[in-house]
């Protein structure tokens, strides 16, 4: 692997290798000394054009645990706010000797452009581009599902599992990345959202769609339910609203104690964070023993360590 840009071009073998590597990385994080010498002398640049404290510190922790040097570059207050183009930023990072660039950008396709523009020698990791892809989030979700729902999970996919993704699919790169990855790993995916929050042209997606959480719970047994964050700026108001009121959204799509009780005993509850308690998920569901939301954060570090290891440790790709 040279870059990690999206989940749609990951083969099943590659995805399983990342998950297996993450298992070993997670094991090292339970030791007293959690730092490994593996990426000594490598430089990882976190290039963030969009605020994301969680993802940035997760990548930063992952790189530091592997002994790589980390340079944080945030667009605010930098040369970018003075009008520098992505190309010139990339050339600057290249000149500083970046072995990998972790990029978060508000524009879909920014990571692809950075990887294939011919400006950079190193690897590019997509940490979220617009409404397009967020592969490490999908990988950490798959890792979390595999840990909880698949016995003797090493080397295995998610065959036969049924995953419901609930909420704003239209604007969600997490949902897009997950649809591809979960399908590649053998799981079935149901998207649960109002018609206004589903993208146009979903025809070829290998998913089923439900327009209410109750309808999805009436369907085939669900093994994991992933609640997406409702982005406040998209909730209500004027002609640009996607649903009439937060109350109605909660009534039709929110996960509360009653709906949680209708899930099978073994099912887990996930959320990529940050949560809007009381809107898409009730406190009862978020804090229940079946919720793995906090564990997802820890798994994120292990999965990002695995991705950085697989991209950077081997001989250089030319």
């Amino acid at each position, binding site marked *: *692997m040279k870059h990690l840009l999206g989940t749609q071009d990951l083969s099943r073998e590659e995805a399983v*290798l990342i998950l*297996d*590597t993450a298992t*070993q*990385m997670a*094991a*090292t994080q339970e*030791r*007293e*000394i959690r*730092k*490994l*010498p*593996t990426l000594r002398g490598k430089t990882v640049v976190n290039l963030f054009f969009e605020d994301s404290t969680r993802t940035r510190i997760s990548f930063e922790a992952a790189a530091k645990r*592997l002994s790589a040097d980390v340079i944080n570059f945030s667009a605010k207050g930098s040369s970018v706010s003075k009008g520098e183009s992505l190309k010139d930023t990339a050339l600057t990072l290249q000149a500083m000797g970046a072995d990998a660039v972790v990029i978060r950008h508000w524009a879909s396709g920014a990571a692809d452009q950075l990887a294939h523009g011919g400006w950079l020698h190193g690897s590019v990791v997509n940490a979220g581009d617009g409404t397009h892809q967020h592969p490490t989030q999908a990988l950490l979700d798959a890792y979390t599902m595999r840990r909880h729902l698949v016995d003797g999970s090493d080397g295995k996919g998610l065959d036969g599992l049924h995953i419901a993704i609930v909420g704003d699919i239209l604007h969600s790169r997490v949902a897009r990345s997950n649809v591809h990855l979960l399908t590649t790993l053998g799981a079935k995916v149901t998207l649960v959202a109002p018609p206004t929050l589903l993208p146009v042209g979903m025809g070829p997606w290998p998913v089923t769609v439900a327009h209410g959480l109750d309808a999805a719970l009436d369907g085939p047994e669900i093994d994991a339910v992933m609640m997406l964050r409702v982005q406040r700026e998209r909730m209500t108001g004027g002609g640009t609203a996607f649903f009439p009121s937060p109350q109605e959204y909660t009534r039709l799509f929110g996960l509360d104690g009653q709906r949680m009780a209708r899930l099978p005993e073994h099912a887990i509850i996930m959320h990529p964070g940050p949560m809007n308690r009381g809107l898409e998920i009730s406190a009862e569901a978020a804090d229940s023993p079946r919720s793995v939301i906090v564990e997802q954060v820890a798994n994120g570090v292990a999965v990002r360590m695995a991705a950085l*290891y*697989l991209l950077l*440790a*081997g*001989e*250089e790709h030319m």
Partner: protein
Amino acid sequence: MTGTILGAPDIDRALTRIAHEILERNGGAANIVLLGIPTRGLPLAERLAAKIATVERGFDAHERCGALDITMYRDDLHRQPTRTIGPTTLPSQGIDDAVVILVDDVFHTGRTIRAALDAVKDVGRPQSVQLAVLVDRGHRELPIRADFVGKNIPTARSERVDVHLTEIDGDDAVILTGGER
């Protein structure tokens, strides 16, 4: 001299001898923990532990045996295709203050053992570390030596030494194949 250097009975005798040498050197098995270096060091460590258990009462072969993956400590990672990371499993009481016996199949340049010593340092602080190998083929590149050796096999650098073990390969053998000189 190429071909099969050690057969199954030779390997078994060598391991029996090493097991006894370990006990002699350490005055028993009280503090001993065996850590196999994957892939083939692991079944060798398990066999040694089983042999020690037949001699020493109260030595729980399963409880005193572990695996130490050294992939992330190698000094040649950037020169090779990306390697798969194997599991590291330690005995439940850890390795602090234990006598750790590292077990590997072929002892060659010493770089694997250097990496293993770094890996050991990150998982605990043993009282001492000793090294047991099935085959020593020479050509050391670092000042590292083995404490227990099954068989010394003089080789040319171009030759290959392959160890087969029943647990992994279906048979027990040490095979020397010639490279061009």
